[in-house]
């Protein structure tokens, strides 16, 4: 079930909220848990069992780690992490690995040495796997000291606001509220407002600008003039940003409606002046996860430049692959590794001081990285990147005529996207959020979003394939 779907907006959410508010406090976790499983099961009727299995296994593991820390703590931690990543590997990476191993082994023997599984990716598995692993490690590190009840743990993992596309919440962030939470009408109100704004970002900005990217890709990655290629790169950059940020905002809003505080996932990333800064502001909870549970355990930057570079290489290759099992994602991660390594040598600091140069650097580079992210077919990707710098195999079929039309058609939308990529609208919102006209505006946003959802059919979350 998508947040931006009729089922969710008009059936699941109202019924769930009424029930959630009506039951006494001590049953809220139970309502949340069953509601979340229903939410997940509606879209993944079979994989919900996998999720339940994961919860059972990992709850047991967590208990064992805390109770028998001295004796079985470490081995339990290792085994349970293997279980989680093992499941993730089988469902997400198996076919990719098999394909490449078969290709490598192809010289030795014919046929498929390793069979393909062709499993569909369970919704949100990358997100909940990371969340569970963070919980296990926190149990081991003693950050989760007291006993966690089963319902609390299961609710933490499955909580529908963040189950399928993050943010990746740490248990300590919800621990207090899991035990007891009061729900104020005002919190529900402001949560619902945030949710509606997020919905607007998703439906009115991301989906709309996404059609430009689509029509440019429809013309074909090898047929674009430099201007069209860059227009496409910018369009996609906005699409993925508003898509994902919109989703995170909806999650945050829903979390607030339920009485939780879900951490911030985006902090105006396109306003950054270096790629390092960009990654401190883009998908913050993922960056935090890699930093706390991988980069620092590997030694971080405390073991010299070479070791730091190696650690960065590991982190960024995995960050790339986390987003998808394909070479372009690995390439995308590696590009960030290169950029960040260079920036670590002082270039980043310099950029962040030079305001204008830093902004230009980010505005030019980030769309290139998104193009790599967007196109999985290496041949197509190569052509697109060549088009961006003016190398064409033949005449660019999509040229000035298309640029003219696209600007006419999407010009206003582009201006809106630029505006909403700055901190200005959110600041205004914070300032005037209790004014009546703000309420009217958000009602209008909600209404238009619903209208768009009803009339348009092209509205998948980009982040759902991860």
């Amino acid at each position: 079930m998508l947040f931006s779907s009729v089922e969710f907006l008009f059936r699941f959410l109202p019924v769930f909220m009424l029930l959630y508010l009506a039951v006494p406090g001590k049953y809220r976790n139970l309502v949340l848990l069953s509601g979340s499983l229903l939410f997940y099961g509606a879209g993944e009727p079979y994989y919900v069992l996998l999720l339940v299995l994961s919860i059972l296994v990992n709850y047991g593991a967590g208990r064992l780690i805390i109770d028998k820390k001295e004796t079985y703590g470490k081995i339990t931690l290792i085994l349970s992490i293997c279980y989680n990543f093992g499941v993730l590997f089988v469902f997400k990476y198996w076919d990719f690995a098999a394909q490449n191993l078969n290709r490598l082994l192809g010289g030795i023997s014919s046929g498929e040495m390793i069979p393909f599984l062709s499993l569909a990716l369970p919704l949100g598995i990358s997100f909940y796997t990371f969340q569970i692993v963070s919980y296990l490690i926190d149990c081991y590190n003693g950050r989760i000291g007291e006993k966690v009840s089963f319902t609390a743990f299961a609710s933490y993992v499955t909580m529908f606001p963040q189950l399928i596309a993050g943010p990746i919440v740490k248990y300590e962030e919800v621990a207090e509220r899991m035990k007891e939470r009061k729900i104020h009408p005002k919190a529900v109100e402001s949560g619902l407002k945030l949710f509606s704004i997020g919905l607007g970002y998703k439906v009115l900005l991301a989906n709309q600008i996404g059609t430009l990217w689509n029509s440019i890709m429809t013309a074909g990655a090898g047929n674009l003039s430099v201007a069209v290629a860059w227009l496409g790169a910018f369009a996609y950059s906005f699409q993925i940003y508003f898509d994902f940020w919109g989703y995170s905002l909806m999650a945050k809003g829903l979390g607030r409606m339920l009485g939780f505080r879900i951490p911030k996932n985006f902090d105006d990333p396109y306003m950054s002046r270096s790629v390092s800064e960009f990654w401190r502001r883009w998908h913050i909870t993922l960056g935090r996860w890699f930093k706390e549970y991988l980069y620092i355990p590997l030694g971080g930057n405390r073991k010299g430049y070479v070791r730091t570079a190696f650690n960065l290489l590991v982190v960024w290759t995995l960050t790339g692959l986390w987003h998808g099992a394909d070479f372009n994602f690995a390439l995308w991660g590696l590009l960030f590794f290169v950029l960040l390594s260079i920036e670590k040598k002082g270039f980043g600091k310099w950029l962040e001081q030079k305001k204008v140069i830093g902004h230009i650097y980010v505005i030019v580079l980030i769309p290139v990285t998104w193009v790599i992210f967007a196109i999985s077919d290496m041949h197509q990707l190569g052509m697109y990147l060549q088009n961006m710098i003016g190398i064409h195999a033949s005449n660019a079929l999509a040229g000035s005529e298309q640029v003219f039309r696209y600007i006419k058609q999407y010009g206003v939308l582009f201006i809106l996207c630029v505006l909403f990529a700055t901190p200005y609208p959110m600041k205004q919102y914070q300032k005037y959020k209790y004014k009546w006209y703000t309420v009217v505006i958000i009602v209008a946003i909600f209404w238009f979003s619903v209208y768009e959802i009803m009339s348009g059919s092209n509205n998948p979350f980009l982040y759902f394939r991860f």
Partner: protein
Amino acid sequence: MSIDKKRLKKNLQNCPYLTAISIIWLFLTIGGVILLWYRDYGGLEWRSLWSSPVFAVIMEKEMHGSVTGLPPTEPAMVKIPDTDRDNGVQEENKIPAVMETLEKDSEHAEQMRSFLAQKEQEEKEMAKIVEEEAEEPVGQTVFVDYDPVETDSIYYEDAGKLALTTDYAYTKVKEEYFTDAVFLGDSRTMGIADYAGLDADFYCENGMTVYKLLDEKGVTYQKTGEKADLNQVMQQKHYGKIYLMLGMNELGYGNTEYFLEHYQAVLEQIRQWQPQAIIFLMANLHVNREKNNLNTEFNNININAKNAAIATLANGTDTFYLDSNPLFTDEEGLLKDDLTFDGVHLYANNYAQWRDFLMEHGVVRKNNRSDENVETHRPAEYQAEINQIK
């Protein structure tokens, strides 16, 4: 438990947004229930309201896959036999081979053999007719039957037959041929306008349908980017050729009969305005495997049903049916993956091939034939790849 009225009032004042959304929700829900009641017990023309998005929110039980967010379940394998993909030389040799394979399949063998015999006969007759009536040849649109698949949709059923490009002695034409041509259609025609490099008039738009084509709101004229009302355009300017390609955006609106009725009405209207024009009814291009979804109405069976319906309107004298699918589809009739990004539209560079196809399928009237050098040929393309039909 009694409700504390004061508290409720205070809360309502504190939460104007929540209140507003709740009211909207209640309004939609109650409205939906009332409409359902009317629908079930009569008394109101609910159909018109049904299409309004506001009420559809509540009422429509099953939305399209993409809206519900369910991933399109298992890419359905639909086999649309695509008969005339390999046109040209090998055609002659194919039939014996086909016959051989058919021998094995005894169920179909008889049927196919008689079909082939009939076909041969028809062809001979056709050739005769063409020879005899050298004055103005008459083309014939051939349909190939196959066993239809069971479908469960209000929008379509499997036509069980495949329309081939109207068989006719087409003329290979030059680009000047298109200067008095007009193309009417949807986003696929936009692709031709953008990338085929033809100097013709294009009135087309994303999402265009036969239901909207002759609307007063108009259709975008690609040379200016402005909307133009075809009711006026068609009465003012006279075209030698009219290319019509519609049907994709109609897949999920009304059934095939309903579609055909409207398509025919549009065609007749255009014919009335342009009695002298050659009208080409272009087949809708199939979609690729990913987009070919049997669980929705968006699939090649439905497209084929629409195409077969359209083809019945071709008369072979001034109205012709052109199927360019063979250029771009594989042996299962699916649009080839390396030709498309979204599974529906061709990459820009593939339109050149489409243009060549159109140039090979020119119709030049004998009495108008100024250039005696034009090469008349008969694309041997409607021989079926019968082993597909199973």
